[in-house]
């Protein structure tokens, strides 16, 4: 219904701005209905202003800024309709060090009420894990799974330096 959609949209809009500010350590973000007269058919536009930059359409964002903005949107919707579990596949690929840290903080907050399965190649992201699984490919082209100790992360890291 129109009323329900509009209410939900407004809640997501408020969350999006809040979460964006936490992930970007400042700035602001807007979600706007392209056609406020016709809520049931309107598109939704995204305008963001990273700290110290001008308000702009999301098309001008850098790789890492785009990732953080999409993550903010994901969690904004998530807060309105929480899911018992959430699967994230290498969403930190474009993030620099400080952004990975802010993303991790957010994960730890949602962890209270949500079960996460995250795939990452980033040793710093992996540090928030409660459990670690290693997936390997055997010589005969078959995947195997092995429960790993979170302390083995350090060993994994030493290997490639």
């Amino acid at each position: 219904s129109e009323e329900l959609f509009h209410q939900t949209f407004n809640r997501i809009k408020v969350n999006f701005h809040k979460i964006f500010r936490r992930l970007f350590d400042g700035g602001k973000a807007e979600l706007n209905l392209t056609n406020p007269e016709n809520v049931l058919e309107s598109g939704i536009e995204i305008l963001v202003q990273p700290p110290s930059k001008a308000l702009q359409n999301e098309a001008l964002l850098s790789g890492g800024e785009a990732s953080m903005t999409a993550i903010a949107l994901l969690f904004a919707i998530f807060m309105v309709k929480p899911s018992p579990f959430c699967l994230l596949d290498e969403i930190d690929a474009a993030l620099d060090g400080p952004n990975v840290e802010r993303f991790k903080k957010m994960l730890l907050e949602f962890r209270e009420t949500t079960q996460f399965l995250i795939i990452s190649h980033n040793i710093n992201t992996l540090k928030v894990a409660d459990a670690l699984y290693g997936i390997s490919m055997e010589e005969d082209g078959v995947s195997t799974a092995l429960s790993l100790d979170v302390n083995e992360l350090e060993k994994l890291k030493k290997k490639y330096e």
Partner: protein
Amino acid sequence: MFLKNLKIYGFKTFGRKVVVDFQKGITAIVGPNGAGKSNLIDALNWVTGETKLSDLRVRTSEQLIFHGSPSLKPLSLAEVSLTIENTDNLLPIEYAEVNITRRIYRDGTSEFFINKNKCILKDITNLFLGTGAGRGAYASMRQGEIDRILKQKPEERREIFEEAA
């Protein structure tokens, strides 16, 4: 509700049975490129009712079954089994532990089970409706999907908002 474990056999690169136990909190998956990490996510999405082949990164459902390697024959069926802890009764079903199993055979036939009882796909997707889990673009983000979310046209974008309402 939380995920307890996932058993995969014959699905994509899982030519031998694999069992993964989940923790409450954050379970992280690591491994080399091409090892099967995203395939595991596909298995999880598939067993909870995913039907869109492109979202499972295949063109035909036959491509979901282990197609063999230079040293192993192809398999003729793929089966994924997810066990969920349901003591909070978030899943509208009278079991404290719910097991969902989905199979596909190379001839294209499919089978679905909830706690060993044969059922249809709709019974599985209905379980998750209203829980926020299972289908719902906002409960997960696949590899490379970040761009897609932002590159969508404003009209296409409303879909994930509608699902939240």
